[in-house]
C-alpha cells in the first residue's frame, strides 16, 4: 500500500495537508489534516467585556478578519439589542465588499490561476501575464484600501465597534472609493470572462448540498438572519446547529460538520447556486451567460463563482456610496444598556457561511461558539479528493493524484488558520489489513456480517467465514439474511464498528484481503461486490464512516459450492486472527 501526500499545502492561508492511501487498486483513505495547533479561541474571551471580545475573536483569521468582525458584531448587537444606524449598516456592507474584493482577487489570480496556466506561483506567471498580475494586485490593494478606510487597518482593524463605528470615514474618501470602483470595471469584466471561460478539469462530477445565508427580500448579498439550503429549506439564525452538527476528528484540530449525516459545501459556489438567479445588472447578465447545471457538481467552479462575486461587489460599491451619502449625519456610535443576552450573527465570509454565537452574562462574555466555513467544508473536501483520486487511479494516472488533490483542496479556498497545511499519497504496507483490523476492532465491540452467495463458489466466502466465526464462538456475527432483523445494529448511536465480510473483486491476486471503509466501496463503481443495495438505505453517513468491508479477492465465481484454495486459505487466516484475539481477551 502506498500513501500520496501533500504535507504542506502551498498557496493557501495557513498550514494543512491532504493525504490519500492507495491499497492496490483502491484509494483506501483520504484525510484533510490541519496541522496548526489548537488556539482555543472560543475560551479566550470568556470573562472579558463584549468590546474586548469584538477586538479578539476576529484574530481567528487574518484574511477573513472583516467577516469575523461583522459576524461577531451582528451576534453582539443581537444579544444586547443594539440597533445601529442605517449609515453604519451600509458602511459595514461596504467594508465587507472590501474583504470580498481583496480575498477573491488574491485567491483567483494568485493562488488558483497558476494551477490552470501551469506556473508554480503568480510571480513566475508575471513574466507572461504581466498585465493580469499587476492589475489584479491593484484590485487586491483596492479591497484592502476599502477595509483600511472603514475599519482603520488592512488586517484586524478596530474601527467597527458595537453600536456602529469609532469614527465615520470622510465624504471625500467614500467618493474616491466610488470613483476607483468604476475605474476598475473593464478589468473586472475581463476577470469574469477569464474565470468563467477556463476549461476546468473533471473532478469528477459529484453533486452536493449547498448552504449559505439568506439575504432576504429576494436579493443577493453576504449576510442574513436565516440559513438557506440548496433544497430550499431555511433555518432561523439561532437554529444554526441543526445544520452544522460539529464533531471532533482525530486527524485535525478543525472540527468537521455533517448535515443529516451528509457532507455539504459552503462558499462562493454555494452562494451562486443558491442565489445566482437573484443577481441583477451586469452580474446578472454574466450569470445568465455562463452559469450551467454542471457548476453544481464540480468544485472547480468555485473560481468561476468568485469572479461573478467580484463583479457583483464592484457594481454594489457605487450604489452603496450613493446611498450612504444621501443619509443625514448622525452619531457614529449608538450606546447600549443591556447587561445580559445571547445572540447569533450570520455572515458570508469569502470562503463561506460563518457563524458567531456569543452570550453575555452581567456585562461579561460567558459563552462563545464560532463555526468557520473551512470546518464545514472539510468533509466535502475529503469526499471530492477521494472520488477524484479513485478516478485517476482507475485510469492508470497515479502520478497525477497528488497534484489533483492539491488543486481540489485549493478550489475551496480553505482558510486553514481559522480551521486550522495540505496533499499526501501513501502505499499501505503488506498485509495491512491485519494492522487495520486490529485498529478497528479496538474501537469497540465489532459486529461481523457475512455477505454473499454460497452457490457461486468464491462468492460464498463472506457467508462461510461468518459461519466459521460463529462456530468458533465469536460474539456478534450475523449473516446477510439476519441483518434487517437486528434493528439495534442500525439505529443505536454506539460507536460499534460494523465489519462486512464479502468477496470483492479488486482485480488482485486471488485470496488477497483488504479492509476498507464501507463508504469507499459503495462509492466505487469499478468494484464488483455483493453488498446489498439496502445497506445504503439502512445506514447513515456517520455510521457508514464507522463501517468497514473485509474484502477477499475471489478466484472463481462459477456455480458450485467449493471455495478456491487461495480464498479458503484467506478465510482461515482471518478466522485465526480473530479467534486468537478473542482468546487473548478472555485471558
Amino acid at each position, binding site marked *: 500500500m502506498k500513501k500520496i501526500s501533500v504535507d504542506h*499545502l*502551498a*498557496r*493557501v*492561508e*495557513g*498550514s494543512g495537508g491532504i493525504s490519500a492511501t492507495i491499497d492496490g487498486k483502491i484509494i483506501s483513505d483520504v484525510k484533510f*489534516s490541519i*496541522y*496548526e*495547533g*489548537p*488556539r*482555543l*479561541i472560543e*475560551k*479566550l474571551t470568556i470573562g*472579558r467585556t463584549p468590546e*474586548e471580545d469584538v*477586538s*479578539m475573536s476576529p*484574530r*481567528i*483569521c*487574518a*484574511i477573513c*478578519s472583516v467577516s469575523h468582525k461583522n459576524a461577531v458584531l451582528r451576534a453582539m448587537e443581537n444579544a444586547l439589542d443594539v440597533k445601529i444606524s442605517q449609515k453604519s449598516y451600509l458602511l459595514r456592507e461596504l467594508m465587507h465588499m472590501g474583504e470580498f474584493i481583496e480575498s477573491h482577487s488574491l485567491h483567483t489570480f*494568485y493562488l488558483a490561476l*497558476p494551477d490552470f496556466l501551469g506556473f*508554480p*506561483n503568480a*510571480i*513566475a506567471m*508575471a513574466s507572461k501575464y504581466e498585465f493580469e*498580475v499587476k492589475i489584479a*494586485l*491593484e484590485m*487586491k*490593494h483596492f479591497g*484592502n484600501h476599502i477595509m483600511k478606510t472603514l475599519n*482603520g*487597518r*488592512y*488586517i*484586524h482593524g*478596530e*474601527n467597527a*465597534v458595537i453600536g456602529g463605528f*469609532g*469614527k465615520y470615514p470622510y465624504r471625500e474618501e467614500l467618493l474616491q472609493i466610488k470613483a476607483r470602483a468604476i475605474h476598475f470595471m473593464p478589468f473586472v469584466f475581463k476577470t469574469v470572462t477569464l474565470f468563467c471561460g477556463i476549461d476546468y478539469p473533471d473532478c469528477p462530477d459529484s453533486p452536493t448540498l449547498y448552504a449559505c445565508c439568506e439575504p432576504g427580500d429576494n436579493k443577493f448579498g453576504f449576510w442574513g438572519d436565516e440559513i438557506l439550503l440548496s433544497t430550499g429549506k431555511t433555518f432561523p439564525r439561532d437554529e444554526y446547529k441543526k445544520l452544522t452538527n460539529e464533531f*471532533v*476528528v*482525530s*486527524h*485535525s*484540530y478543525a472540527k468537521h460538520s455533517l448535515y443529516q449525516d451528509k457532507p455539504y459545501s459552503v462558499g462562493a459556489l454555494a452562494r451562486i447556486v443558491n442565489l445566482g438567479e437573484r443577481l441583477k445588472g451586469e452580474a446578472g447578465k454574466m450569470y445568465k451567460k455562463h452559469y450551467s447545471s454542471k457548476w453544481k457538481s464540480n468544485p472547480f467552479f468555485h473560481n468561476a463563482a468568485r469572479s461573478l462575486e467580484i463583479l457583483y461587489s464592484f457594481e454594489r460599491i457605487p450604489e452603496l456610496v450613493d446611498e450612504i451619502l444621501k443619509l443625514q449625519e448622525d452619531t457614529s456610535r449608538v450606546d447600549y444598556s443591556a447587561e445580559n443576552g445571547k445572540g447569533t450573527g450570520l455572515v458570508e465570509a469569502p470562503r463561506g457561511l460563518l457563524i458567531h454565537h456569543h452570550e453575555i452574562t452581567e456585562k461579561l462574555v460567558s459563552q462563545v461558539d464560532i463555526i468557520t466555513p473551512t470546518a464545514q467544508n472539510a468533509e466535502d473536501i475529503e469526499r471530492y479528493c477521494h472520488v477524484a483520486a479513485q478516478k485517476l487511479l482507475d485510469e492508470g494516472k497515479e502520478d497525477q493524484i497528488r497534484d489533483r488533490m492539491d488543486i481540489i483542496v485549493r478550489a475551496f479556498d480553505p482558510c*486553514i*488558520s*481559522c480551521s486550522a*497545511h495540505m496533499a499526501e499519497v501513501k502505499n499501505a504496507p503488506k498485509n495491512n489489513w491485519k494492522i487495520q483490523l486490529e485498529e478497528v476492532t479496538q474501537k469497540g465491540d465489532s459486529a461481523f456480517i457475512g455477505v454473499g452467495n454460497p452457490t457461486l463458489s468464491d462468492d460464498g466466502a463472506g457467508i462461510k467465514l461468518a459461519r466459521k466465526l460463529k462456530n468458533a464462538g465469536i460474539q456478534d456475527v450475523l449473516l446477510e439474511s439476519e441483518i434487517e432483523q437486528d434493528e439495534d445494529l442500525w439505529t443505536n448511536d454506539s460507536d460499534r464498528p460494523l465489519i462486512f465480510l464479502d468477496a470483492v473483486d479488486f482485480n488482485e491476486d486471488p485470496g488477497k484481503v483488504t479492509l476498507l471503509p464501507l463508504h469507499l466501496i459503495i462509492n466505487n463503481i469499478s468494484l464488483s461486490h455483493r453488498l446489498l443495495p439496502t445497506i445504503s438505505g439502512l445506514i447513515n453517513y456517520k455510521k457508514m464512516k464507522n463501517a468497514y468491508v473485509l474484502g477477499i479477492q475471489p478466484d472463481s465465481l462459477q456455480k458450485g459450492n467449493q471455495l478456491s484454495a487461495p480464498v479458503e486459505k484467506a478465510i482461515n487466516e482471518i478466522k485465526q486472527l480473530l479467534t486468537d484475539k478473542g482468546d487473548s481477551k478472555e485471558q
Partner: protein
Amino acid sequence: MNKDKLKIGIYELTGCAGCALLILDCEMELIDIFNAADIQSFLMAKSDNIDGELDIALVEGSVTTEKEIEELKDIRERAKVVVAFGLCASVGGIQARFGNKEWKENYKKIYGDIEMTHTKSVQSQPIDAYIDVDLYLPGCPVGKEQFLHFFTRALKGAPPEKYPRPVCVTCKYNENDCLLNKGIPCLGPLTADGCGSVCPNHNLPCQGCWGPAEGANPTSEFFLLKEKSFDIEAIKKRMSNYSGTKLAEFFEQFKKESK
C-alpha cells in the same frame, strides 16, 4: 537566483496567518520584494519552496504542537538571523494567555478525550521559549511600514529600526485628544508602538495588540494610570489579552522599580 541576494524564508506556525498575509498586502511593493531578495520559502505565496541555508528567517505564529517545535529548531539551524515576526511569535499571541492547567481544562472542553493522530499539541508559547531570537517585530499583525523598513534596511545590511516607546508617543504626534483625560481606560501608555496609534486616531481606546512596551519608562506610565485612579486590575486583565506569556514579567518590573 542571484547568489548575492539575501536568502529569506518566511514560515508560519500557529496563528491567524495575518503577518504572512501582510507581506502579500504590500501589493505595490510585492514584485520588487520578490526581485530584490531570494525568497526561498513562503508557503502562502508559492509552491516551489526549498529548505536550505538562510540569511534571514521570518517566523510568524506561536508554537502549539510538537511538530512545530521540530520545525522551529530546524529553521534556527539553517538561518543566520531569526526574526520573531508578529505578536504570536513574540509573546505567544492571544492564545498564550492561559496557564498550563487552565489550558488543559479548556482543551478538554473543546476536543474532549480524543487522541490526535497527526501531531500532539502543547500550550501556546512564543518562539523564544524554544530557540534564540535575534529580533522581535511585534504587532497583531505586524505593521506594513514596520516590515518594509526592516526589509529595506536588511537588504542594505543596516540594523533594524526599533520602536522603544509606547503608543502614546505616536498618538501625540497625531494630535489626538488623550482618551485617558476623558476617563476612558486606554492601553496606549503600556503598549509597544508601531501601529501608528490607529485606535485613538478613531476615537477608540488602545486594545494593547502590539504587546507590552519596552523602554521609555513604562513604570512611570503605570503609576500615572494609578494616580489617575484607573482600575489597575481591569487594566492588567485587558493587558493580558495581547501580552501572552510576557505579561507577568512586564508587571513584575513595576513592582521592582517602585521599591
